[in-house]
């Protein structure tokens, strides 16, 4: 989403450069957005957490404290030690290494889910605000009907032919969140679609595509951002739940849900091992949710006065 806003920003930037106005501060929009994100403590928190996540995910491709594949049946559920900072799990593998490697799986899941949800959601939004009232009415009803299907049911059924896999999570969650997105964005989109500026654009001969991409999408970006960030957080949570049910991330693929699901069985005996994945998931989900809120405020020229100068 940020791309569209940024490109819009840069487009007008070039215009303003043309219009021979006194250019006192020709800062790129991205810098302004980052700065206003960083200025708020929530923004700082979420940027740090998400940044760490990204870094760890990249680092884990090349390096983890212990090789990921190494199991050691003689030292299962070991307490934290110099060799294993966070101890070992039920196969004797290093918990820290698995959590680090898990971060990239979860990152992938989150990104794919969000993309899927965004694409699907926008499609639905387009259907709902179209001038063809029959299509709009049916899509509203269909969305209301589909939205009641719980993600986990979809995942259960998808998991049978596909087996436990990332695709199951992405499709099931992306589908559900796309519907949610459409439903939530509907009012903003309708507001834009029925607004006087769209009416005058249409009166001036604008095509539906023009109106949708130029007017409606930019005006639902704030809702979109918040909803997508919620979806991202929910995807992380859903991953752990689905993996626990055996229909999420396949065995052997590191993920936070995998760490959580395998260690959760032993919470009575080895509570410490469960602590880490649980904490990480909680913190990351909080960061994602907060990030959506602050990003919305930072990226929207209506709320971020810095962008308006």
């Amino acid at each position: 989403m940020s791309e569209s806003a940024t490109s819009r920003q840069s487009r007008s930037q070039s215009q303003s450069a043309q219009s021979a106005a006194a250019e006192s501060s020709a800062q790129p929009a991205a810098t302004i957005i980052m700065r206003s994100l960083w200025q708020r403590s929530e923004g700082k928190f979420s940027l740090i957490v998400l940044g760490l996540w990204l870094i760890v995910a990249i680092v884990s491709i090349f390096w983890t404290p212990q090789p990921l594949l190494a199991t050691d049946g003689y030292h299962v559920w070991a307490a934290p030690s110099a060799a294993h900072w966070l101890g070992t799990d039920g196969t004797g593998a290093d918990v820290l290494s698995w959590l680090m490697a898990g971060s990239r799986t979860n990152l992938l899941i989150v990104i794919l889910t969000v993309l899927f949800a965004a694409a699907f959601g926008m499609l639905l939004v387009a259907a709902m605000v179209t001038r063809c009232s029959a299509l709009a009415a049916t899509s509203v009803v269909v969305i209301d009907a589909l939205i009641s299907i719980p993600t986990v049911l979809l995942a259960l059924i998808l998991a049978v032919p596909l087996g436990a896999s990332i695709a199951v999570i992405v499709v099931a969650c992306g589908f559900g969140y796309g519907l949610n997105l459409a439903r939530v964005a509907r009012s903003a989109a309708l507001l834009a679609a029925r607004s006087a500026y769209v009416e005058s654009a249409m009166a001036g001969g604008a095509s539906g595509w023009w109106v949708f991409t130029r007017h409606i999408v930019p005006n639902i970006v704030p809702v979109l951002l918040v909803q997508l960030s919620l979806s991202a957080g929910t995807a992380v949570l859903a991953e752990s739940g689905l993996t626990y049910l055996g229909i999420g991330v396949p065995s052997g693929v590191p993920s936070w849900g995998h760490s959580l699901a395998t260690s959760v069985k032993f919470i009575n005996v080895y509570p410490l091992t469960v602590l880490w994945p649980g904490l990480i998931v909680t913190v990351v989900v909080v960061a994602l949710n907060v990030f959506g809120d602050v990003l919305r405020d930072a990226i929207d020229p209506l709320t971020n006065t810095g962008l308006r100068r």
Partner: protein
Amino acid sequence: MTTELTPVLTACHIDKYFGRGGARQHRKQVLFDVSVDVYPGECLAVIGGSGSGKSTLTRIMLGLESADSGTVSYNGHPLPVANLRRESGLVFQDPFSSLDPRWRVSQSVAEPLRIQRRDLSRVEIDNRACAALRTVGLDPTIFADRFPIDLSGGQAQRVAIARAIVNEPKIILADEPMSAIDVAARLQILDAFATIRETWRDMAMIIVSHDLGIVQHVADRVLVLHDGHVEEYGPTEQVLASPASDYTRQLIDAATL
């Protein structure tokens, strides 16, 4: 103006119903046999009580809504006429709702050009947008990069006008363009209209308002609507100075206090 002049836009015997359902008796008739026309270079004002059908009539005249009976013709051709849209400009009642809040002023003003004039280069489009802004008395160097939220009501209204005139329309429709702003700003906008009318001499204009002061200020002719019926129709001077109908007289008396 002389008799030979033909009207740009003519509406004849317009009836309009609102409401759902098939049976006519369940629907509400808001316009009763209304006929009106506009000549090039002329400014027609539509006045009347709230809910009397002013907005509906003007929307029908621009083909934004269809009438249940009666015809509208543009330059002698019955609607729909393809080039009416290109050659007309719209100014809505609420300036802020008619500007995309996330578009800069320059973008909003240039939008009609970008949609209709694919032949123009970007620079050319920008130049025309700036010219339009200047016409309505806004300095492009200051206002082009602003967002609507940073404009005052009068400024926003003038941006909306600039947007309506950027494509040099043959006819402009302004639906209560000034109700939301203070007196000083109203004057600015009226000045802007005056400039435009001097620039394009044969541009027609329809203005809807319930403020008789404004009507007196700009309009050449006045149409008085009362509950969907034409109450009075004639030159401004005549209608305001010696109204033929009681209703018009009451309106005028109440306004002069």
